[in-house]
């Protein structure tokens, strides 16, 4: 017998052989199903609000707020991350996913206090989205300005 003398490339190939992977097709459809369902629920809320006589733009704003609330409450009850194991991108992309990304660290870092724990870490997951969201909004603004 001798020592383990595989190169990194050889070992990498071996790892790929044994590493199970989720079916891409299944992931695609479960994300489509759940993401689509969340959007459908949003659309139903908009229609209901418009039905009560609200302007469409106001109804859309209220719908965003309601979905954020739902995402936050489901995170608090520990349901959202379970759902995400099935839905993947389907629960990350909609606005409920953003609520989850804010509430999850807020719940967790409360243990270190409200100022330096929760206050500091609340954007630990959503931070990159906010940073690069602002940057891309700026770039689009510049392009719009240039195109007149």
């Amino acid at each position, binding site marked *: 017998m001798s020592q383990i003398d595989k190169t990194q490339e050889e070992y990498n190939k071996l790892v790929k052989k044994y590493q199970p992977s989720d079916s891409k097709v299944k992931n695609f459809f479960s994300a489509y199903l759940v993401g689509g369902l969340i959007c459908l629920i949003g659309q139903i809320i908009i229609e209901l609000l418009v039905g009560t006589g609200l302007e469409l733009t106001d109804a859309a704003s209220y719908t965003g707020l309601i979905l954020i609330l739902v995402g936050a409450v489901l995170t608090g009850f520990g349901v959202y*991350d379970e759902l995400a194991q099935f839905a993947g991108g389907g629960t990350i992309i909609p606005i409920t996913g953003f609520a989850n990304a804010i509430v999850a660290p807020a719940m967790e870092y409360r243990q270190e206090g409200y100022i330096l724990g929760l206050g500091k870490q609340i954007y630990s997951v959503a931070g990159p989205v906010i940073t690069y969201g602002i940057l891309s909004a700026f770039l689009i603004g510049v392009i719009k300005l240039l195109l007149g």
Partner: protein
Amino acid sequence: MKKMKKLGQQTVKFIDPPQVISSASIVGKKEEAGPLGEYFDEVISDGYNNQKTWEQAQIKMTEDVLNLVLEKVKLSKDQIDCLLAGDLLDQTIASNFVARKFPVSYLGLFGACSTMAQSLAVGGMMVSGGAANQVVSFTSSHYQATERQFRTPNEYGDKYPPYKQWTVTGTGAMILSNQQGGVQIPSATLGKIIDLGVKDPNDMGSAMAPAAADTIIQHLEDTGRDPSYYDLIVTGDLGEVGKSLLLELLLEKGCSIQDNYDDCGVMIYNSNQKAGAGGSGCGCSAVVTASYLLPQIMYGNFNKVLVLGTGALLSPLTFLQGETIPCIAHAVVLEKTGQLTPGIGRPSIRSKLANKVENLSGNEG
């Protein structure tokens, strides 16, 4: 007179083997629901364990297991010469903070999930060499506390790959002594760092398998033994993926262990428990060894067992900086002494194993 002897490259042989006189474990609900559930001494109520934070929950659970392991053999804190421990939390706080309640010499160790085997090997050298009469080796891990340190907040909805492992909530402690015990440690092999370039922190099993393979080969070479010398060779927390990789790596070197090999991470959960590729964490090999393997060995269901603690020595920082994961595996040999000690095994397990042994000998007679 020599008390220890170096064998080959990395192995220490204890001429007067240190004895395990007591062992105890405390686990979470999920571990209790697994196939080895009945073996564990105590179970905590939930992740918080009646504390304010997950870190404190881990500290409390570890403190309780230390008191339990002493209580089982009616030893007081001042009869212990040294504590050897480590864990996964930054600066190994779970172990350090527990030790402040024990006015005893303390050695903090860090071997990530290899800590149980590491602390048994170092403790064994202390007892065998005469530096201490009685030491306690212990370690712990906690799902939520570990998850948030190494990955994302617990409630954050990111999708885990199927090969990710589940950090065991659990703590195990063992007392090594120069007095007669139920199980002894005749030798130990200290591992070296092996890194075959795995970067994915969700795939610890693949990262650690080469280190485990290296230590197994080295141990067999140093001792001149064949894998069949052992009734069981068991790794700490390679999980399903790492287990298959280890078998293949060893087979390539002409070493076949599949008939007597298992992994604590695979043993601790049922396949329907949504634990991914199996358990991981310092607590994984600690609770399985303390509460399952030791009683089985003491009652002779296994006579000789090679236990490997497997550790992935990464930090969340090194992963972001694109580093690969250095890994290590330490091995200790656990052997039946033929004596029964009251400290090993829960009362219900002891009577079950004792009956089984009697029945077996009855049949043979």
